[in-house]
């Protein structure tokens, strides 16, 4: 088989291919497939065949709109690209007839573009409308009707279609409309504005300043740059449409390993797997160790239960992660790499394995890559359902085929790692940043973020949030912006109580700190951590004691049992929490909790035991009254306190040791 040459790679960079004029892309990641994306793809393929249509049917990963799965994207000539959510096989006929043939959008499925414009370029063809007011959606039809009538009155109904959107990207701002193709967006539109918008913007081509929604999108897609765009199963697509392996080309032919590390240093990239250690330094330390062999490992164990950033990146853009690993290997002089991926992520495993195979076939892996002196091989190793294997030393033990028990550090893996050789372990997201840094420069990357935390961070925002989705924002974005502006606020318009970040190693951040700008340091100050990017939104009905118990139980289940503080301390702590949540707690329990937590933090061998108390300590710090309420008034009273419907000051007098009437704990 003919292999890729340096020259060809340069040609790809110089002449990116034109997209076909007409295409439909189906987002086939695990979430999309679970929601039925394969059936949608099959229906599209069938119709295409049956009607002998020419549109190009493509496969892609996920853009991150989990709330709207399955998602497809449609490009028809002369129209902007349109995302549709909640697509079913039954909708496919409409996509083909209405959208591709008649250039008409489909009601209740369009997800409006986040690339909002402030100027109108060209005549309006479609008007998206959605009521985002308190009773979400209730006035959407009214506005659709009003706009349609007004357009009819002015003889424009043929030219402009009014479409109800599934999601318009602006929330709690009354009726919102978006004019296509430009993307000009108006918010808080009232009935009298309808005539004005039609007359001035649609007929007159002028933007109405007092309605214009000027807040730009908070998101910046660096890690997710290709997710939802490229076909994760096609190296060719990655090479041609996503400047694939251009970062590697620059590393190999336009710089030496020291310069690559210098570029990483300039970027300020820090590890995205939790601890935030500077990536360039990790590479430098590994490089500095004299050794016959060095290894690079991609940590795709993604243990945080409820976070799916790494899975999504591996499934949607596997070649980017592979390219990042190769650049890392070149920089530190490693000739072998391992992807350590959870066995519970079969799609991610399948796609990264395919990516490796394709890269090998094209000579991007193997000896003397692209004719350079750099040789590299990559392999996949599966995790087997042990959270502790995300810890570096345990992960190494697991790749070596042993039980994944952590061992004391130092020596750090950069000194003695896999099979005793210097090893650098990087998170999936960290590696996915690397090709972008190499092609666009460290300074460009460092242009995003805060003083100490550079670049962007991907979060998987879930829980009681309106739009559960992947979000990538520059560091320094506030929690409020992420939750309210990007994800649409709390589900069912309820009140937010707290946000959990960092999963089982993290903590809760109460509502009064929502304006905190996200960075490694700021989250740590609040008693939480950045973690790998899970972000769980909790509303008034969620009991903080139950949440703490949930995370603690997780850590106790996952403790490897090697050291006593974690094994015994964790178990004791869980028993106390259980007692409290059943209304059997006593006044001394809270002090006891503090003592056990401190012992675990200080004396545990690895990060699991050291951080397991974090969810407990942070809920105690901010929601101590909920613990008190359980102890003083029992579960049903505590539930009222946690909802805010009883004030903790007026705990009912409980007589002696009478057990509470209804001791069933509930998380509702």
């Amino acid at each position, binding site marked *: 088989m003919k292999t890729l040459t340096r020259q060809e790679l340069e040609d790809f960079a110089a002449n990116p291919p034109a997209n076909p004029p007409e295409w439909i892309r189906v987002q086939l*990641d*695990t*979430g999309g497939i*679970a*929601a039925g994306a394969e059936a949608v793809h099959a229906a599209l393929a069938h119709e295409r065949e049956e009607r002998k249509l020419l549109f190009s049917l493509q496969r892609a990963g996920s853009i991150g*709109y*989990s*709330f*709207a*799965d399955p998602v497809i994207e449609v490009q028809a000539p002369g129209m902007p690209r349109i995302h549709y959510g909640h697509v079913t096989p039954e909708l496919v006929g409409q996509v083909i007839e209405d959208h591709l043939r008649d250039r008409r959008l489909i009601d209740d499925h369009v997800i409006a573009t986040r690339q909002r414009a402030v100027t109108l370029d060209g005549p309006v063809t479609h008007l998206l409308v959605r009521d985002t007011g308190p009773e979400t959606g209730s006035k959407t039809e009214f506005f659709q009707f009003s706009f349609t009538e007004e357009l009819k009155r002015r003889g424009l109904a043929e030219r402009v279609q009014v479409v109800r959107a599934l999601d318009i990207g602006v929330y709690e701002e009354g009726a919102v409309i978006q004019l296509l193709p430009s993307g000009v967006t108006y918010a808080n539109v009232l009935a009298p504005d309808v005539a004005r918008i039609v007359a001035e913007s649609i007929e007159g081509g002028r933007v109405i300043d007092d309605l214009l929604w000027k807040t730009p999108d908070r998101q910046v897609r660096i890690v997710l740059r290709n997710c939802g765009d490229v076909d994760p199963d096609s190296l060719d697509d990655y090479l041609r449409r996503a400047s694939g392996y251009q970062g590697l080309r620059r590393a190999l032919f336009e710089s030496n390993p020291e310069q690559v590390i210098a570029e990483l240093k300039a970027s300020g990239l820090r590890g995205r797997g939790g601890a935030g250690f500077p990536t360039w330094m990790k590479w430098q330390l590994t490089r500095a160790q004299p050794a016959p062999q060095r290894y690079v490992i991609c940590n795709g164990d993604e243990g*945080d*239960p*409820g*976070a*799916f950033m790494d*899975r*999504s990146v591996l499934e949607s853009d596997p070649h980017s992660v592979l390219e990042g690993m190769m650049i890392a290997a070149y920089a530190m002089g490693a000739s072998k790499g391992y992807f350590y991926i959870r*066995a*519970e*992520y079969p799609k991610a495993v399948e796609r990264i394995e395919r990516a490796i195979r394709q890269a090998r076939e094209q000579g991007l892996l193997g000896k003397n890559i692209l004719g350079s002196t750099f040789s590299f091989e990559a*392999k996949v*190793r*599966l*995790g*087997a*359902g*042990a959270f502790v294997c995300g810890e570096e030393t345990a992960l190494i033990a*697991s*790749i*070596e*085929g*042993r*039980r*994944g*028990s952590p061992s004391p550090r130092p020596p750090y893996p950069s000194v003695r790692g896999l*099979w005793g050789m210097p090893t650098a372990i990087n998170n999936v997201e960290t590696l996915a940043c690397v090709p972008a840094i190499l092609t666009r420069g460290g300074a460009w990357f460092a242009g995003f973020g805060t003083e100490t935390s550079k670049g962007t961070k991907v979060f*998987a925002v*879930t*829980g*009681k949030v309106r739009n*559960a*989705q992947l979000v990538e924002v520059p560091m320094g974005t506030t929690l409020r912006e992420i939750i309210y502006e990007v994800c649409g606020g709390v589900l069912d318009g309820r009140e937010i109580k707290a946000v*959990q970040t960092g*999963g089982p190693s993290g903590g809760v951040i109460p509502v009064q700190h929502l304006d905190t700008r996200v960075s490694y340091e700021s989250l740590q100050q609040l008693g939480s951590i950045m973690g790998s990017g*899970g972000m*769980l939104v*909790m509303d008034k009905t*969620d009991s903080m004691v139950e*949440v703490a118990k*949930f995370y603690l139980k997780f850590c106790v289940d996952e403790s*490897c049992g090697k050291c006593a503080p974690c094994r015994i301390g964790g178990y004791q702590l869980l028993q106390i929490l259980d007692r409290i949540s059943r209304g059997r707690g006593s006044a001394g329990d809270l002090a006891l909790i503090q003592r056990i937590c401190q012992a675990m933090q200080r004396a545990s061998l690895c990060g699991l035991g050291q951080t397991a108390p974090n969810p407990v300590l942070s809920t105690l710090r901010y929601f101590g009254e909920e613990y008190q309420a359980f102890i003083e008034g029992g579960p049903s009273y505590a539930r009222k306190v946690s909802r805010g419907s009883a004030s903790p000051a007026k705990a009912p007098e409980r007589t002696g040791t009478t057990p509470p009437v209804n001791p069933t704990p509930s*998380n*509702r």
Partner: protein
Amino acid sequence: MKSAAPASPVGHVSHDESALLDLLESLKQRHGFVPREVSDEVSRLVEVKLERLRRIQSQLDTTIRRDVQQHVAHWREEEGNLIMILHAIQNQHGYVPREVAMELSRELGVKLARIYEVITFYHYFKLQPPGAHTVTVCNGTACYLKGSGELLNELRSQLGIAEGQTTPDRQIHLDTVRCIGCCGMAPAIVVDGKTCGHVKSSEIAGHLAGLRAKKEAVA
């Protein structure tokens, strides 16, 4: 290929055996003794049966050995290959049968105890055959917040088993998993590989009835 299923041939034998014994008993009662021809015939039958069993047994051994050798050959060159081989075995059988683990120990020259040490450390590896059907409840944070606990309780009480267990008739296995990547559809469960989102506890009975109907259709 589910090679480790000696239960059914044995079941057949014992069934035939009891018929035989009945026959002998009735002969003895009617005639006071068992004629020579009959007892010879019986011992011949038993020999044939035993021979057949031995054949099945040795076929089984050969299959197991061949499969294990194949897995090991595939991973031979790789350092630290034990976990990857165990994955291959579990993919094939749905669990790690004891006979296979023993063969693997011989083939790799690794102590059986060390193999079990690894198997038991990792939750993913199973030592019991899975049920015919599996219901998995996502217990990731998003699903937890949206009520996966209630779904699990409902399943526990309807099936009469805890998570990680299989119903006594080996039909339905109940399990939990952490985040299946469909947090947008929380709470989610997986019924025989099919993901169902926004599940309510009132819908559990329907899902189970669906599985049981499938079972009858197969039987």
